[in-house]
């Protein structure tokens, strides 16, 4: 029987789903003129969910026999998801109107995908992981193709769907192996089986490998990253902004919890794998950023490289002295990444033309003069991605590298730091294009996209002066607390 506590643990997810359903139904009956109401309704739903979440925060609820845990880790990530949901919704109306996307399903789909992300953050059972993975991905596949009949958008949708299902397949296959090894799908029960020595180690490792690959697709680490630039490029910019942060963070949410709770005993095998993946991703991601002339692809690779840095700090997770920092530094960086990423996409949203063009590096020429606020904001985001001080990204990297060095992986940290030079080259190329190259960019800054860009830029700058509070927040976001 479902208890009251069970319901409470999934209340945020339920809120979003119910609200999305209501919006879908209402959308059917709503006259065309009233469509301005959709974004407001979506914000209202997100605010309501946020309120529900704030009431449940700090209680450490567990539901469905431990399958769902609304611990402080989940709450931190849920808050991040909700904020990115709000930012995505705020970015959308002007953009959708300009590029002629006229589907009222857009906002409910965002809410549905968010509900999956929220569930993912609390999922403590493999079945739950799979369910939430599908719940967050399916609406994203549709959203990627929502600019139909634009071919690029449809292609992106199909590509995302095919590779997404492949990833899901890996995850599902991995789940079956873990189940075969431990006779359970629950994280805690599986860990207990490993502790007790009743688990079949070879099967468990095979399951771990498959799960890491499956989730590796979702967080786009090299070599499972190649779909990301194509999908990011083809999908409507606001959708990309949303999934670049949301889907990546959700993938990390599941991966970190899974590894820490279930596979901590297999660190001997998993750590070298993570070290190699992190090194490949930091190096490969940043190397490929260098040669991008399309801004959407550029941001895609910057996102890939960022995943590499987060993975790097997670490499020494098995060392009890740094485990808390591993988790906290990843969460902290996720936050700084989310702000910079959303802000940067907001600038790109203002640059995209109705036919999808305007996304090349040359289209930035003269932006410093034409749209000083947007250009300054994009400069801040680029510096934050690079990790230049007085941006939140600097403290993010500072903490990540500190964790890696504290865990004894100085070589990995030095590699990561040196790849930051490549990132800097790419970032300064963008800045140079905006300020030093003359041109008349075709930019459509709507009020709200500018607000998002400036808001994110101010957060990135101002929060860099008070990182202490955020560090504390991230450190407190522990699994199971």
């Amino acid at each position, binding site marked *: 029987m479902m208890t009251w506590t069970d319901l409470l643990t999934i209340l945020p997810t339920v809120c979003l789903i119910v609200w999305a359903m209501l919006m879908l139904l209402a959308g059917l009956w709503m006259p065309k003129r009233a469509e301005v109401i959709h974004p407001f309704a979506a914000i209202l739903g997100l605010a309501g969910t946020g309120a529900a979440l704030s009431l449940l925060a700090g209680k450490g609820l567990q539901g469905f026999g431990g399958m769902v845990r609304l611990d402080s880790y989940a709450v931190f990530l849920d808050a991040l998801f909700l904020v990115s949901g709000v930012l995505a919704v705020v970015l959308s109306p002007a953009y959708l109107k300009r590029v002629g996307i006229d589907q009222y399903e857009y906002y409910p789909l965002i809410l549905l995908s968010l509900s999956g992300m929220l569930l993912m953050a609390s999922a403590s059972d493999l079945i739950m992981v799979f369910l939430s993975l599908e719940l967050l991905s399916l609406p994203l596949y549709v959203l990627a193709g929502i600019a139909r009949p634009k071919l690029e958008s449809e292609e992106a949708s199909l590509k995302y769907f095919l590779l997404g299902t492949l990833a899901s397949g890996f995850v599902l296959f991995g789940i079956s192996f873990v189940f075969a090894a431990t006779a359970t799908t629950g994280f805690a029960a599986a860990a207990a089986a490993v502790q007790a020595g009743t688990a079949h180690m070879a099967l468990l490792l095979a399951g771990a490998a498959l799960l890491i690959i499956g989730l590796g697709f979702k967080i786009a680490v090299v070599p499972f990253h190649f779909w990301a630039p194509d999908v990011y490029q083809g999908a409507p910019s606001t959708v990309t902004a949303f999934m670049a942060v949301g889907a990546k963070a959700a993938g990390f949410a599941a991966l970190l919890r899974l590894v820490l709770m279930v596979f901590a005993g297999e660190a001997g095998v998993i750590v070298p794998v993570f070290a190699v993946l992190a090194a490949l991703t930091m190096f490969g991601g940043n190397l490929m950023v260098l040669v991008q002339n399309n801004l959407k692809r550029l941001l895609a690779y910057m996102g890939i490289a960022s995943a590499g840095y987060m993975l790097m700090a997670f490499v020494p997770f098995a060392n009890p002295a740094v485990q808390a*920092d591993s988790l906290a530094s990843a969460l902290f960086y996720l936050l700084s990444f989310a702000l910079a990423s959303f802000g940067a996409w907001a600038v790109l949203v203002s640059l995209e033309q109705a036919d999808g063009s305007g996304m090349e590096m040359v289209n930035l020429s003269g932006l410093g003069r034409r749209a000083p606020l947007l250009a300054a904001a994009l400069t801040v985001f680029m*510096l934050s991605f690079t990790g*230049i*001080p*007085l941006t939140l990204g*600097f403290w993010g990297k*500072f*903490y990540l*590298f*500190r*964790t890696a*060095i*504290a865990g004894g992986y*100085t070589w990995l*940290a*030095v590699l990561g*730091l*040196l790849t*930051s*030079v490549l990132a*800097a*080259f790419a970032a*300064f*190329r963008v*800045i*140079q294009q905006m*300020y*030093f190259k003359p041109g008349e960019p075709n930019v459509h800054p709507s009020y709200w996209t500018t607000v998002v860009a400036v808001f994110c830029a101010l957060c990135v700058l101002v929060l860099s002066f*008070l*990182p*202490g*509070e955020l*560090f504390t927040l991230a450190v407190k976001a522990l699994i199971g607390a």
Partner: protein
Amino acid sequence: MIFGMNPLLVVTLFPLLGVLVLLVLRPQWKNALRWTALATSLLTFGLSLWMLGLFNSADGGIQMDLNLPWFYLGGTSIAFHLGVDGLSILLVLLTTFLTPIAILSTWKSVEEKVRGFMIFFLLLETGMLGVFLALDMAVFYIFWEFTLIPMYFLIGLWGGERRLYAAVKFVLYTLTGSLLMLAGILWLGLHAGTFDLTALTANNTLSLTQQLWLFGAFGIAFAIKVPMWPLHSWLPDAHTEAPTAGSVILAGVLLKMGAYGFLRFNLPLFPQASIKLAVWMGILAVIGILYGALVAYRQKDAKRLVAYSSVSHLGFVMLGLFALNTQGISGAVLQMVNHGLSTGALFLIVGFLYERRHTRELNAFGGLWKVMPVLGGIALVVTLSSMGLPGLNGFVGEFSILLGAFGANPWIAGAAALGVILAAVYLLHFFQKLFLGPVTQEANLTLKDLSARELAVIVPLLAVIFWIGLYPKPFFTLMAPAVDKLLAVLQAASAAMH
């Protein structure tokens, strides 16, 4: 204390006040913007003199200490810790002294985007002061990296023809070094459990191997900034392409950040590694001295010539530092100031000529003495000061450095002395090409001599050039106790090694 405020905090943050005023002013009010920036930098200079007044030159330790806790990260506290001692006070004064001069030099040369220029310039001043005053490694790093951004824009927006290339090269070179330093900072902070420099110096538990690694991590960052041969290749481009005021600050102050880094981090924190590597650093310094001088002689562009002369001069500074004795180190500190004054003045002279003729080719000039006697006279004094003529500032510094270097290693010092002769060769070549001989080009016949504003720019430099040359004692007095303290650390490390 004004209103109980720490003088260092006031000096460091005062330029930001000017930035705020500039942000309020309209971009078209060019003169108002210029005067605001100049007034801000002059007031900052005044405040730094007030700081000097409060400074006790008999004390070799950190003074006017300001330690504001900032936040904790994994049990380690990071604090906004500022302090000044005899090693940094001269560089602080150099910064606040050169900034108004550089700003005043832009009256005619910067006509576009004046507001942005002045904002970046004042931001840069705060960044540089922060570097010299920070005593927490994280805060030091923040200021260190922060100086990159304004300088990048100063070169990229107001620079010469190849400014894009020069700006990016400047950033990437410096950043590569800085990131290695960040790895070193993080490692050291974790190892010692503190980011505080005073605590690190007081309680040093590093083994020789650890010191050598850290020396490398920090040393590469600083060596790029100095720049030491063979990491110097960003410098000629950045200096040549930067606007005159930018070159003055680049050569005058930014390069000193590298030498200061060696002084503040490598020597006191990794003393055993410093002793082990002193000979090698000395050899690199001498290569830099000779290489810089030889390449400078072959330049056709006056600004590039001055840029390469910096490589040579900074070689002397590094030679002095790694002599690891009193004369060497105090000579090096003084020579940092001297180089800021003389090379700053040389860049200004080239800038005056460029504003008049829009070329920097040595061959485009000649015989200017007849047309511009005042500039000619000033240029002669500056050239001779850069060469190290007795009675002018360069001599005091170089002589002290060579004295120290002879004490450490006569062979290296002998080779370095050759650099003094080579300096005479390229600098006299520079002066002769510009000012002596007949006037070969007609355009040069009608050149106007220095205006009152231009004199106001360069005369203060000349005054200090003479002051240091004739009466250097106050400068040595300021730094002596701090140098002694540093040497005590080095001697203790040397004793521990045997």
